[in-house]
C-alpha cells in the first residue's frame, strides 16, 4: 500500500506545533459524553465470535434508528483480561462492561442500555468470590489493582486509526525529542528514567543506546524485537495489535538518539493481526510525515520496515534475530562484539523489545522523573504480565514493579479456581523458573525474581494448581528448548536432551536419587558452557522445581507415584460406579475398546488395554471418570 504524493502533501505535519494543533482539533471535535459501543476485536475475542456481535449490534442500531458509532477492531486478547469470557462489549461514556455477549444479545443491549439507559444484568461480570454483579470497568478488581502505562490506550483507541492515536497523545514524545532535545539529551532522559529492557535480561536501555551512539556517523540501525516466543506470553502482541503507534514512536525516538535512519520490526509470523495493524500504522505515520524525510521539520530522516519471523524461538536472542533479518539462519554469535558495536549488517545497532519501545514513548512524553517515580529503586516503572493458566481472570495485567506475587494472582487475577492458593507460578518463559506458594509475598521485580531462582523474562506468568506436576512442567520446558536449540554449541545441543531424558525416566517412576545430583552437575556445565541465553538458562526449569518441589521428584523416583496425577505411566483411570450413568459416551470415545459395560449400568475400564489417552475423561459429562 503506497500513499500517493498528493495524499501526503495534504497530511504532512511540518512541526511540533502542527502536531499539537491537529491533536487540539481532534480533541475539540470529540464529545466525551457521546454514547459509543466498543467491541473487543482482539484475537481472543474474535475467536469467540466478536465479529458476529459487531454485525448484530450495527444491525440492531440501524433498526432502532440510532446514530451511534460502533467501534470494532479495537483490542487484543489481553484487552480487558476476560478474553476467555469474550466477546466483550463496553458502552461509553459510563464504561458499562458486558461479557460473553452473543449476537442474540444485541437487540436487548440497544433497546435497554442505549435507548433506556438500563443495564442488562445477566451480561455483567460477576465477582468470582462474592457473586456480586459489577457494572463498570473501573469497579472490577481486575482493573482496580492495575496501573496502566504501556497498556493505557489499549482498548481506548481504534488501532487502525491514527486520529485516535493522536487524540490520546501519540507522537507527542517523539515531537518533543526531535524538536527540543539533542540526541544526547534524549539518551540522558532514558538513562535517568531508570528504564530496563522488558525483553528478559533487564539491561538498562539508556546505557545500551549510549554504547551505539558513541560510534559517530555512519550507518546504524534500531530494531524492535517482536518475536515474542515465550510460551504463555502475549503482552507484545497485544501492544502491537492495540497500540501500534506507541512502538513506531519509540523507535523514532531511539533512531534519533543513536543516529540511525532505519528501523526493523521483527514480528512472529504467528501474529497476523499484529502485523496488519503495524503495517497500517507505518503507512499512516508516513502519510503524516512522522516517518520519512525531515520528520516534523527537524531534519531527521527515519523509516521502519517489518520482517516476519519464520518460526524459530532462538531468533528472540538479539544476535540470532539480526542474522535472521539479514536473511540467514538464525544462529546466535558470540558476544563481544556486542550489537551496539557490530550488529545488523555489521553496523552499530540497538535492539529493544516491544514493551521497552512503548515505554520510551511515554518517558519522552511525560518525563524521566515521572517514570522514575514508579516501581522500586532498581526496577523502575511498570511491567505487563500475561497472567494465564489456573487463574480466574486470564489476561494482561500491568502493575508497578515490586508488587507482591500474591496481589497479582489472588487479587487482580481473582485467585485459583477451586483453591485458596496456587501451587506454583512460572515466570520468565522457558528460561525462568517456578515460584512456590511460600514465595507469595515476594516482590515482583528484576532482582528479587532472580534471587528466587526465576527471572522476569518478557512477562509470562503461568499459574499452576495442585493438579499440575512439577516434574512434567520441567520436562515440558526442556523438551521445548531441546526442539528450539539451534544446535550450534554442544552444551545446549547435547546437555539439554540429557536433562530431559533423566526427567523422562523420573516421570516413568524410574531413576534414582543419585540422578538428582547428576542433574545439578550437568546443569552447571550447561550454564557455564552455552553460547547464548537459550542454553545458559535452560537448566532453570529443573533447578527451580528441584529447589522448591524436591518431595515431588522423590515421590516419582521412590514411590513411583505422580502426586498431581499427570505422568502417564504412573496414573490409572477408573470409573466411579456411583456416578456413572452408563451413557456409553466413554466407551464410544475409547480408541482401545477398553471400556466395557451394559447400557445404563456402570462401566469399567480394562487397565491392561488402557493407553491413558484421557478420551474417556474428556467425554464424560458426569465426572465419573477418575484419575489416580
Amino acid at each position, binding site marked *: 500500500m503506497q500513499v500517493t504524493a498528493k495524499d501526503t502533501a495534504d497530511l504532512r505535519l511540518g512541526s511540533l506545533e502542527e502536531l499539537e494543533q491537529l491533536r487540539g482539533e481532534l480533541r475539540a471535535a470529540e464529545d466525551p459524553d457521546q454514547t459509543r459501543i466498543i467491541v473487543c476485536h482482539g*484475537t*481472543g475475542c*474474535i*475467536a*469467540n465470535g466478536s465479529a458476529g456481535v459487531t454485525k448484530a449490534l450495527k444491525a440492531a442500531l440501524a433498526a432502532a434508528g440510532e446514530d451511534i458509532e460502533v467501534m470494532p477492531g479495537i483490542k487484543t*486478547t489481553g484487552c480487558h483480561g*476476560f*478474553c*476467555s469470557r*469474550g466477546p466483550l462489549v463496553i458502552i461509553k461514556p459510563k464504561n458499562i462492561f458486558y461479557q460473553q455477549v452473543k449476537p442474540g444479545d444485541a437487540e436487548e443491549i440497544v433497546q435497554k442500555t442505549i435507548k433506556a439507559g438500563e443495564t442488562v444484568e445477566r451480561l455483567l461480570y460477576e465477582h468470582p468470590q462474592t457473586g456480586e454483579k459489577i457494572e463498570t470497568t473501573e469497579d472490577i478488581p481486575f482493573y482496580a489493582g492495575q496501573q496502566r502505562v504501556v497498556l493505557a490506550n489499549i482498548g481506548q483507541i481504534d488501532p487502525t486509526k491514527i486520529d485516535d492515536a493522536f487524540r490520546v497523545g501519540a507522537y507527542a514524545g517523539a515531537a518533543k525529542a526531535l524538536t527540543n532535545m539533542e540526541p544526547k539529551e534524549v539518551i540522558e532522559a532514558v538513562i535517568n528514567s531508570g528504564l530496563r529492557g522488558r525483553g528478559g535480561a533487564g539491561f538498562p536501555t539508556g546505557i545500551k543506546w549510549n554504547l551505539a551512539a558513541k560510534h559517530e556517523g555512519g550507518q546504524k540501525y534500531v530494531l524492535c524485537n517482536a518475536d*515474542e*516466543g*515465550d*510460551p*504463555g*506470553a*502475549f503482552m507484545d*502482541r497485544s501492544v502491537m495489535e492495540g497500540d501500534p503507534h506507541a512502538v513506531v514512536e519509540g523507535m523514532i525516538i531511539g533512531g534519533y538518539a543513536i543516529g540511525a535512519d532505519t528501523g526493523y520490526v521483527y514480528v*512472529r*509470523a*504467528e*501474529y497476523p493481526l499484529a502485523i496488519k495493524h503495524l503495517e497500517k500504522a507505518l503507512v499512516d505515520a508516513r502519510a503524516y510525515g512522522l516517518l520519512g524525510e525531515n520528520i516534523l521539520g527537524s531534519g531527521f530522516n527515519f523509516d521502519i520496515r517489518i*520482517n*516476519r519471523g*519464520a*518460526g*524459530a*524461538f532462538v531468533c528472540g536472542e538479539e544476535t540470532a534475530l539480526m542474522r*535472521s*533479518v*539479514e*536473511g*540467514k*539462519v*538464525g544462529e546466535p554469535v558470540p558476544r563481544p562484539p556486542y550489537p551496539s558495536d557490530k550488529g545488523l549488517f555489521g553496523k552499530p545497532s540497538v535492539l529493544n523489545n516491544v514493551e521497552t519501545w512503548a515505554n520510551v514513548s511515554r518517558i519522552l512524553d511525560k518525563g524521566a522523573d515521572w517514570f522514575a517515580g514508579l516501581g522500586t529503586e532498581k526496577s523502575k516503572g511498570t511491567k505487563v504480565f*500475561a497472567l*494465564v*493458566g*489456573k487463574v480466574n481472570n*486470564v*489476561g494482561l495485567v500491568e502493575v508497578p514493579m515490586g508488587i507482591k506475587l500474591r496481589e497479582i494472582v489472588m487479587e487482580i487475577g481473582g485467585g485459583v479456581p477451586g483453591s485458596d492458593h496456587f501451587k506454583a507460578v*512460572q515466570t520468565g518463559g522457558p528460561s525462568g523458573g517456578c515460584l512456590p506458594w511460600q514465595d507469595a509475598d515476594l516482590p515482583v521485580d528484576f532482582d528479587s525474581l532472580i534471587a528466587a531462582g526465576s527471572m522476569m523474562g518478557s512477562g*509470562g506468568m*503461568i499459574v*499452576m494448581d495442585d493438579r*499440575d506436576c512439577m516434574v512434567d*512442567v520441567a520436562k*515440558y*520446558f526442556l523438551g*521445548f528448548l531441546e526442539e*528450539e536449540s*539451534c544446535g550450534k554449541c554442544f552444551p545446549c545441543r547435547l546437555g539439554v536432551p540429557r536433562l530431559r531424558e533423566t526427567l523422562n525416566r523420573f516421570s516413568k517412576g524410574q531413576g534414582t536419587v543419585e540422578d538428582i545430583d547428576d542433574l545439578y552437575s550437568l546443569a552447571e556445565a550447561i550454564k557455564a558452557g552455552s553460547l547464548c541465553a537459550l542454553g545458559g538458562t535452560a537448566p532453570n526449569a529443573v533447578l527451580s522445581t528441584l529447589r522448591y518441589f524436591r518431595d515431588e521428584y522423590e515421590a516419582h523416583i521412590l514411590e513411583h507415584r505422580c502426586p498431581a496425577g499427570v505422568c502417564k505411566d504412573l496414573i490409572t483411570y477408573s470409573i466411579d460406579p456411583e456416578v456413572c450413568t452408563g451413557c456409553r459416551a466413554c466407551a464410544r*470415545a475409547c*480408541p482401545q475398546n477398553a471400556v466395557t459395560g451394559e447400557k445404563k449400568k456402570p462401566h469399567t475400564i480394562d487397565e491392561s488395554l488402557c493407553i491413558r*489417552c*484421557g*478420551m474417556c475423561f*474428556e*467425554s464424560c459429562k458426569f465426572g465419573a471418570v477418575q484419575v489416580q
Partner: protein
Amino acid sequence: MAQTAIDIDIDEIIERYPGKPEYLIFLLQDIQAAFNYISSEALTLVCDHTGVPEAQAYAVATFYNSFSLEPKGENLIHVCLGTACHLKGSGLIAENLMRKLGLDGPGTTEDLKYTVETVNCLGACALAPVALVNGDYQPKVTSPKLMKTVQKLGDE
C-alpha cells in the same frame, strides 16, 4: 491445485523483492504461503534471484519451522503446545488427533488430506487449550470436539 500454478505465479512472487540476500526469507515465506511448500525448483529460482548459494538457502529453509520442503495436506491443523495449553492437556489432544489420523507424529497423512503440526504458543492463552483449523481458532478444544471438527472437513 497449487502445484500446477507454480509456473504462472512464481515469477510474480520473485519480482516482489529486490535481488539481495536479505530478501531470501521474505521470498521463501511468500512461496510457502502461495504453494503450501517450497519445491526444489522454486528454491533454485529464489537463489538465482537473490544470489544466495543453494546450500545456504537449503540451510535456511530447513532451519525455520514455518518452511516445508514437502507438500502439505489440504487441511492444516495446528495444536498449540504453549505452557497454558500444555497444563490444560493439549499434549494429549495432539497425540489423540494424530493417532486418529494414523500419524506417528506431526506430519501429513498419506492421502494429503490433513497436516497436523504443533506450535509453541499462539499467544491466545485465555482460550487454552487452543487449536487452529485452517486458520480458524478453536477455543477450549477437547479431543472429541477437535476430532469432530476435523472429521467434518474430511467429509466436505
